[in-house]
């Protein structure tokens, strides 16, 4: 038995239906305690004061924002190469989650930036990259929404996702270059992932796991919805052809 067995929509529906309650349960078991731990039971940090608590929503959402795009790239490639319906529907299902994560990362980053750097927005390479990532998500979703034929939409959005990934990566380096070019050495990055003590690290880890599980649960539900929509679409076409 190979992994591709799950690419069959029927098998996927059966399996994901069985797995889903477990994933939802695990999400609740990690995300809720993680967030509560992070919010109520973590001490102040020396440099950041209590504002360090924002890390528990900011870092997980930022990591998910990038990883979800990577997941969409992989599933789009699988669709282009092997034409498995589950794959491309999963990419579509993930897009809205990805864009939400990007918005959360941007908003929490801006709110955190105000007390830390004295400004809501700076054209710091990381912030700028996220704004660009947000634009790419928007374009991807807009293309899905604009095309009526689901198979054409699947093909075109996959092509866009692949080409877009290349340009997103290019933008990442371009932005690095561009900002350093403007203000030499005045970087605002805080290297937050490095030197974080265990008191903050453990709840952060739990939150990260919670966000990953939440994403898996949501993407399973949304992929199931998308597959049902495909089936619904087919049934409607068949009905219309019978009527005609």
């Amino acid at each position, binding site marked *: 038995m190979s992994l591709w067995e799950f690419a069959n929509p029927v098998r996927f529906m059966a399996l994901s239906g069985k797995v889903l309650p477990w994933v939802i349960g695990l999400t609740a078991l990690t995300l809720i305690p993680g967030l509560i731990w992070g919010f109520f039971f973590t001490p102040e940090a020396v440099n950041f004061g*209590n504002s360090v608590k*924002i890390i528990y929503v900011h870092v997980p959402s930022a990591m998910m924002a990038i990883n979800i795009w990577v997941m969409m790239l992989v599933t789009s490639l699988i669709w282009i190469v092997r034409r498995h319906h589950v794959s491309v529907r999963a990419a579509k299902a993930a897009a809205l989650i990805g864009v939400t994560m990007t918005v959360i990362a941007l908003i929490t980053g801006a709110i955190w930036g105000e007390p830390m750097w004295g400004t809501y927005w700076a054209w710091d390479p990381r912030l700028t990259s996220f704004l660009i990532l947000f634009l790419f998500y928007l374009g991807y979703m807009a293309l899905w929404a604009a095309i009526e034929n689901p198979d054409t939409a699947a093909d075109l959005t996959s092509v866009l996702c692949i080409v877009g990934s290349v340009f997103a990566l290019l933008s990442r380096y371009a932005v690095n270059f561009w900002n350093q070019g403007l203000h030499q050495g005045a970087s605002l990055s805080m290297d937050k992932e490095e030197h974080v003590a265990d008191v903050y690290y453990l709840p952060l880890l739990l939150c990260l796991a919670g966000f990953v599980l939440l994403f898996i649960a949501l993407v399973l539900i949304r992929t199931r919805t998308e597959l049902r929509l495909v089936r*619904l679409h087919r049934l409607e076409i068949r009905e219309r052809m019978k009527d005609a």
Partner: protein
Amino acid sequence: MLELGKYADAILSSWGATLALLIALILVTWRRSVQVKKALHTAEKRASGNG
């Protein structure tokens, strides 16, 4: 109540925004899932009813 100090506004607003967005996402996903499930159910019934 927890003492958040001078960063209370920042912490509460960022956590509030995050939770609001996540809950909205979950609700949208869940509602759409129920809607589509129902629609597919009726469509399948009709299809099998017509032969």
